[in-house]
């Protein structure tokens, strides 16, 4: 899922400074799972901002709402009235949700309350890790189900760099070397021979580097 982290409160306060009526809008999907922008975080942030506003002698008004998915028109339209009443919407959804609001409500100021961080998962409660870079050309079938694009700091395709030590990454000794993981996993599967082939040059045009990507499914279009 998409993982996000709430922005520092000082940055949020600076973003909302020019506005009086602010709708804090959460999202019930990815950011709820990553404890960054669900209903609970909306409530906590609203309380903090109300207190800060009062202490600073401002009379800002904070409304709260959370929709199931901010990245779909139908869901955000459910709070259309609250959006219309606000001077600005502080979205706690990922960057997709923020942009969906901006596109749907072209006259409304929409501000991001979180930093969208990566595509990943929780490996334990409170520990979220990156697993996918959405590079558009999945090679997990060749690498034992461990992604060197997302999990190697240099996105190397043909094995570890010389900085891999004790199976850890040179960037951070707490980080597993993706190529050690790939090697160990293929060894376990009895598929080490798969490592011998030179990996083709990566076609980065399928990644973001080819510009914003688009999928059109003619079979599904109405």
């Amino acid at each position, binding site marked *: 899922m998409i993982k996000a982290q709430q922005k520092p409160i000082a940055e949020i306060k600076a973003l909302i400074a020019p506005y009086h009526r602010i709708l804090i809008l959460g999202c019930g999907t990815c950011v709820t799972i990553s404890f960054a922008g669900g209903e609970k975080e909306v409530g906590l942030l609203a309380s903090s901002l109300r207190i800060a506003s009062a202490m600073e002698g401002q009379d800002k008004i904070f409304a709260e709402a959370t929709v199931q998915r901010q990245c779909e028109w139908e869901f955000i339209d459910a709070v259309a009235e609250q959006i219309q009443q606000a001077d600005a919407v502080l979205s706690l959804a990922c960057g997709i949700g923020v942009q969906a609001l901006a596109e749907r409500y072209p006259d409304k100021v929409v501000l991001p309350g979180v930093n969208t961080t990566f595509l990943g998962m929780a490996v334990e409660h409170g520990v979220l890790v990156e697993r996918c870079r959405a590079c558009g050309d999945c090679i997990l079938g060749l690498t034992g189900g461990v992604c060197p694009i997302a999990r190697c700091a*240099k996105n190397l395709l*043909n094995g570890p760099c*010389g900085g891999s030590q004790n199976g850890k990454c*040179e960037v951070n000794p707490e980080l597993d070397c993706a190529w050690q993981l790939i090697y160990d996993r293929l060894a376990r599967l009895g598929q080490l021979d798969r490592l011998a082939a030179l990996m083709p040059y990566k076609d*980065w045009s399928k990644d973001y580097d080819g510009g914003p990507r688009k999928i059109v499914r003619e079979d599904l279009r109405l």
Partner: protein
Amino acid sequence: MAKSLFEEKLNSGKFIVTAEVGPQKGVDCSEMIHHIKLLKDKVDALNVTDHQSSVMRFPSLGGCLLVKELGGEPILQVTCRDRNRLALEADLLLAYSRGICNVLCLTGDSVDVGDHKEAKPVFDLDSVQLLRMIRTLESGKDMGGNDLKGAPQFCIGASVHPAADRIEPQLVKFEKKVAAGAQFFQTQGIYELDSLRRFMQYASQFDVKILAGIIVMASARMAQYMNENVPGVIVPQSVIDELASAEKGKGLQKGIEIAVRTIKAIKEQNLCHGVHIMAVGRESVVPEIIEAAGL
């Protein structure tokens, strides 16, 4: 015909000696020029490092041009960290056009260990693919499949880490580098000979030349610092203890002694095809090491 003087020497069967110079941060090249003059006639080729440890410096290509102008035999170090395939190809065309015909293909340290930590790392290619790309240029085509007007010819090498604690994945990569066209390898620092001996028993099946990396340590503190901060460096505790045993102010002398002893042993035991001496800022001691080791 050999592609370079260095290739000729690699194939001659003589014990090869290379060293390296690290360009300065800035445009005053006087110290680098001094080091080049000091070393160029004492070694078979002189590497110029490419933003070593991801610290921004005068470029390796610029340093190699100086080596060439001063009558030396340069090895251009090229990392994949800072340039995409267009820039890498273009730099190689320039290098060849100016008589720089030896290339050491490296991944490059992560930007996180350097002095521009917020830079965008490139890594469009990896070191294996860089080697392969050079062979493609030699065939008269670029990576896009387009014809080149005049194709370069390079003697190409790469690095290997015989003392890596998890050696298997490193060997997988080594074999890929061989398959991609590497002719010579410079190893990471060698301090004890067992790992080199083991590695050579394995590597002798490939038709490539192995140059053992010799890092000149100036003190126990430097060794510890490198262990903690320089990717790929593993100085054993016994070497650190030996450096620490030196009298105050004599650390470098001890470091030279260790380097000389290691080189002599490698040569006498005919362990590999040569040595690559990395003096890390103390290039002025390299002639002394070469002489003392009887090279």
